Every structure is written in structure tokens, then in C-alpha cells.
């Protein structure tokens, strides 16, 4: 039986929790903005900023990868739920669509999340 998408959201993560998402160079457009494609991933990996640090996250990713930051509220507003996934390291979570936990964020929801995000410098 599929998990209840609402119950499955980790409500222990408050709306103001800051999340990081790695963006590889190929997903950055010539004008320096990020493609919505960076957010169209099944079980999209994110990290809870307060439970790790930039260097530790970037060390897991390819050289040139940068971090976008957004809040748990931004994820929920974009139709996503957040699940802890500790096998990915400290603070690691995955974001899945509440309406389709086995799929990807819709184009519009990925766009909304991208628009809400900013660079973690």
C-alpha cells in the first residue's frame, strides 16, 4: 500500500527550515540563472542546512556544483513533501510530489520552487 503522501511529509521539519539543493554546471544557464530542470527529479535530494555544512555537501558532488537554498515551506507550496533519507548523509532528505510520490514535480511546481530559491553563497 502506498504511503499517505500527507502523513509521509516530515512534519518535524518546520516551514522555516532551510534546505540546499545541488545544481551542476550543466543546469546553470548562460545568464547565471538555474534551469527548472534542476528540480525535475524523482526523489530530489536536498540537505537540511542546519544539520550539515556547505563543504560537506559539495564534497559529495561534482566540482563546479553550486547550492540553491529554499525553505521547507517553498517545497510544500510547490506541491512537494519532504522525507528524511539518512542514507545520503547528515541532513539528507528527498522531495517528492505529494500527488505522485513516485514521480517528479510537475513543470509548474518545479518552476515555482526554482523561482523561490536563491544561491547559497
Amino acid at each position: 500500500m502506498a504511503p499517505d503522501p500527507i502523513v509521509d511529509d516530515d512534519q518535524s521539519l518546520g516551514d522555516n527550515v532551510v534546505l540546499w539543493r545541488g545544481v551542476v554546471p550543466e543546469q546553470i544557464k548562460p545568464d547565471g540563472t538555474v534551469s527548472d530542470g534542476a528540480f525535475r527529479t524523482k526523489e530530489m535530494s536536498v540537505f537540511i542546512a542546519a544539520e550539515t555544512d556547505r563543504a560537506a555537501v559539495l564534497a559529495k558532488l561534482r566540482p563546479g556544483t553550486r547550492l540553491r537554498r529554499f525553505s521547507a515551506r517553498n517545497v510544500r507550496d510547490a506541491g512537494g513533501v519532504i522525507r528524511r533519507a539518512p542514507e545520503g548523509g547528515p541532513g539528507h532528505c528527498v522531495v517528492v510530489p505529494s500527488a505522485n510520490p513516485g514521480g517528479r514535480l510537475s513543470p509548474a511546481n518545479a518552476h515555482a520552487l526554482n523561482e523561490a530559491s536563491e544561491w547559497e553563497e
Partner: protein
Amino acid sequence: MIATLSASSMTTDAAALHEVASAEEGARREQWNAIVPVRTRWEVEAIRPLLKLTALPTDWDGDASPPPDPGVVEAAIRFLAAVAELGLGRLPQPHVVPLSGGGVHFEWAAGARQLQVAIFPDAPADFLRVEGRAVVDQGVLLLTAWEQIRALFAWLTPATA
């Protein structure tokens, strides 16, 4: 296995095609074996970054993703060829992005309008239209639905429709 682009129907693009093939064939040698007929420089410039993505290493995203799936790349090239044949005049070049899991994502921008098309190995393609900061619509895109495709690109570049 050598990547080759062929421009049998547009000889003026021969130099550009040779440049593409020469620079990228080594990286793709084990991943891509196809002759890609193109008719326009627009296609060359759109396909070039797509083929570059096939050289991405496995785990390029830190989530064990492969480079774009060969079936996705073929579908994308056919799609770009179909768009080129729409006869809509000068279209902007797309920004091409890899998707985790083996897909590819195209973004075209013209003024305040943006059209996105994503092609996946395990799900139907889809599209998104954005104008300014507002989402216009989204939906599934059948890559052979010519009238729908024409309508999307005519919306993107109304002056040339």
C-alpha cells in the same frame, strides 16, 4: 563507434558539422553511434549541446544518474528536426539541460515568453509555458503531435508565426 553528423541536405553547414563531430566524437565514442541528418544551422546549434551531454559521467548529479538515455537523445533529435520543419522562421536557440534519471530538458526564451520541453526515458514528455513570472499552462506533450507543437512554438515567437 564514431559519432557522425551528416548534412546531406544543407552543404553550407558542413564546416560547423565537422567541427561538432571532431570535437565531440571521442567523448561519445562509447555512447553514441548515429548519423544525424540536419537541414538547418538552427538544428546544429541545438543538437550540439545535446550531444555534449551524452559525455556526462555516470553519477553526474551525485544521485547515480546516467547521462541522457540514448532513446531520449534520439527522440530529442527527431523532435528538434520536426520543430525546424515547422517553418516558423527564426527560432531562438534552446538551452539544453540534463535531467536526473536520463532525461533532457529544453528551454526556449523569446522576450518575456519561455517554453520548456522535458523528455524522459520513463514517462511521457511534457511542456511548460511561462510569460513573465506567470505560468501560462503545462501538460503532456506527444512528440509527434505536430499541431500542438506548432501551436507552442507559434506562441513563443508570434512575430514569425
